[in-house]
């Protein structure tokens, strides 16, 4: 009797182990960053030092002194120091070298997206029904500063990428002016962790990236100084652990990084972003003008009602490449109640009733809402994957992100101009009782931000990666469509947004085509 019980128990236990095993064995590894190894650059862009920067008159505006000669005692001492460092790495140092790779533009872009997602939280109501807005003057809050919503994130990424780009153009200029060979070329006993190439090592491109990225992100995320300092410290150290750069290479890179971030933050301080979140009287006046002009206006539908929409004056922020935001302002949307409106409103009701699984998936795939890296972040993530696929060097990578993110920020500015100029009500406002599967954001409907961001991003990527043009344009259309499936935009919002985004990108691309890189 006992034996049968025991046998049953053993059989029972064995089957449990099998089931638990099957649950855990199908678990996927969950990547926290792009898994790729350092790669050989497809091109070094040896003329990159002649490209036109964004913030500076030329690549030699920042002055970097010539380095000590290769056979000088001080450089020889640096090489000896580098050799002993790079030959004696701990396990964590080896991991660090593998993480940062020879294209750390990728990692700093990921860090930026992570902070965007961390800070993309909408301020909650106070117990009395009022709202307290984040304040740069009191970043700890509550609520903490910033609220990294899509306009904020688009701007953060634009400054980060432009500063990285200008810094690397300057670095490339001096690299090929001074032509200091890589440490392993001078001393073949110095191990080099990445794929060898003929890029001169002075000034260190990695140090430019580390300093400029750290400092731009510190300005954008004032509560993250410790985190960013630690990351930059590790990155700078990894330049030695990997055998990439000596101390003087790194110090010269830091000088460039500091000069570029100073110029970038000077522009940021006067780009009118600080006035984008207007006080209520201005917000009310904007709404009233729209009502006087068109006979409609948007109202926040949350409870308690948010008194001011998101950044009503973001449309007045200084653009990178569009001379005047009105140049890319779309035609007016159809009036609520018009037959054109009713057609698109009916489409939303139909989707709400009969959404396919695939349509739901598209809505969620592109939702990029609160708590995420936002649509600008989504396009940066795709861009990053192309950069690795096409094995771009750091300069070419920075250029790609710079034009992408200038276009995306300009698209955001253009879109926000339209949103508050037209002040168009959302579907949940025009169709009382309408239910959605995505949360409706706190700003007017026309044009769709996702569509505008995506239209612009896709055109820049199609320009830089012509072989991917069809794919990225399809994605932009899918992103625009996703908002309709989600019930938060009419089709005319999305279509106008795509057109507007593409129009913005044409200015960006015109500038890119003239920067000497093509």
């Amino acid at each position: 009797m006992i034996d049968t019980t025991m046998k049953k128990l053993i059989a029972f236990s064995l089957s449990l182990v099998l089931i638990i095993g099957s649950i855990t064995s199908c678990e996927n590894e969950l990547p926290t960053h792009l898994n790729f190894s350092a790669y050989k650059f497809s091109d070094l862009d040896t003329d990159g030092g002649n490209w036109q920067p964004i913030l500076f008159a030329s690549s030699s505006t920042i002055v970097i002194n010539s380095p000590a000669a290769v056979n000088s005692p001080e450089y020889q001492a640096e090489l000896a120091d580098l050799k002993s460092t790079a030959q004696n790495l701990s396990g964590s140092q080896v991991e660090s070298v593998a993480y940062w790779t020879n294209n750390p533009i990728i990692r700093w872009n990921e860090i930026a997206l992570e902070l965007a997602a961390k800070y993309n939280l909408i301020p909650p109501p106070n117990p009395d029904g009022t709202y307290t807005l984040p304040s740069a003057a009191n970043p700890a809050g509550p609520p903490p500063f910033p609220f990294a919503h899509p306009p904020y994130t688009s701007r953060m990424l634009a400054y980060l990428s432009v500063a990285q780009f200008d810094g690397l153009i300057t670095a490339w200029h001096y690299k090929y002016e001074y032509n200091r060979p890589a440490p392993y070329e001078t001393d073949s006993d110095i191990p080099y962790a990445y794929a060898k190439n003929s890029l001169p090592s002075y000034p260190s491109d990695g140090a430019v990236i580390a300093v400029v990225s750290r400092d731009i992100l510190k300005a954008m995320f004032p509560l993250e100084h410790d985190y960013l300092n630690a990351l930059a410290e590790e990155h700078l150290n990894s330049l030695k652990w990997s055998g990439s750069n000596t101390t003087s290479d790194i110090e010269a890179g830091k000088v460039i990084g500091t000069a570029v971030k100073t110029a970038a933050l000077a522009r940021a301080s006067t780009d009118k972003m600080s006035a984008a979140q207007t006080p209520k009287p201005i917000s009310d006046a904007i709404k009233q003008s729209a009502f006087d002009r068109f006979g409609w206006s948007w109202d926040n539908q949350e409870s308690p009602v948010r008194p001011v929409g998101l950044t009503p004056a973001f449309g007045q922020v200084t653009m990178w490449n569009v001379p005047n935001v009105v140049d890319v302002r779309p035609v007016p949307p159809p009036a609520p109640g018009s037959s054109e409106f009713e057609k698109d409103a009916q489409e939303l009701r139909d989707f709400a009733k009969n959404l396919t699984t695939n349509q739901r998936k598209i809505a969620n795939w592109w939702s990029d809402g609160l708590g995420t890296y936002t649509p600008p972040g989504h396009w940066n993530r795709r861009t990053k994957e192309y950069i690795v696929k096409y094995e771009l060097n750091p300069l070419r990578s920075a250029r790609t992100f710079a034009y992408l993110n200038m276009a995306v920020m300009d698209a955001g500015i253009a879109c926000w101009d339209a949103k508050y100029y037209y002040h168009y009500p959302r579907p949940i406002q025009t169709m009382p009782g309408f239910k959605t599967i995505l949360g409706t954001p706190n700003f007017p409907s026309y044009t769709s931000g996702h569509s505008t961001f995506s239209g612009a991003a896709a055109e820049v990527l199609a320009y830089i990666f012509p072989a991917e043009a069809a794919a990225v344009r399809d994605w932009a259309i899918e992103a625009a469509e996703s908002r309709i499936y989600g019930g938060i935009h009419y089709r005319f919002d999305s279509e106008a947004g795509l057109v507007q985004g593409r129009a913005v990108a044409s200015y960006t691309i015109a500038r890119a085509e003239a920067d000497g890189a093509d």
Partner: protein
Amino acid sequence: MKKILLLQVFCIGFVTSVLSQTFSDAIMMKKKEICFAFIYDQGTWDQYWEGTNLITNENIGTFTRSTYMPMIAYGITDKLNVLLSTPYVSTKSDGGQLAGVQGFQDVNVALKYEIIKKDFGKHRVSALAVAQFGTPMSNYLSDYMPYSLGLGTQEFTGRVIGQYEFNKMIYLRASAAYVWRGQTEVERPYYYNNGSYYTTYMDVPNAVNYQVILGGWAFKQSLRMEAFYNIMNSVEGDDIRRWNMPQPTNKMEATQAGFFAQYYFKSIKPIKGFSLMASYNQVLEGRNVGKATNLGVGITYQFTF
């Protein structure tokens, strides 16, 4: 004593009770006995814990989760029972604009094995083990909390139960379980969980479950009444961020107390074999879950096959 299937449905409210549904009593059906049950459970809340902070959100208002659960149990032997259930869930809220959802949630199958049953005069000691496996019945979206039907993951529960029955009148029962949960596939390619995740998969935290039940029989063992205390805690996970949506990676904790009653029709001819049950429970303490009040009613019918 007629052996009748008894179910307890705990509704955690924020996600689903039925996921944590416990086949946790000490009663076994005899060989070839079969029992059909249908249970309706409604959980409502208008406050939830954001992390450990209890808040209200007028954009949700009052949240309601309704669960309709058909169930079959069968006595393979006197000592081994199998149980199968497929809850249908519907969710809605009366605030905000987010649409509720409805559909079949997970199919759950459990094996219950009686390890020990020993009488000491009028007292009885019993010990049982339950193994339960659940898996989603459709590709419902788990990443739509609190409206989602369930956690969208495979789940395996291993449970042990011990009971002491005094005088065939009053019993004290305790059970402990560990719930292994797999991953859930969501529809967005990126999410934040104290850091970036570039994937459509989320780890759903494992959980532990402890219960203590004091029960008794009345009316010649036709009425059974129980008071219970239940703790269901994720062993890891992140907190809902400020004014943000919950997600399946959250560390969910709920402490509930409640009552349960079941009346068996033993002698009334046309309805012999039927029973009716009712339950009430309240979430007292929680983390990343709704402060739900749950009301349940059910009917069972049992016969020998």
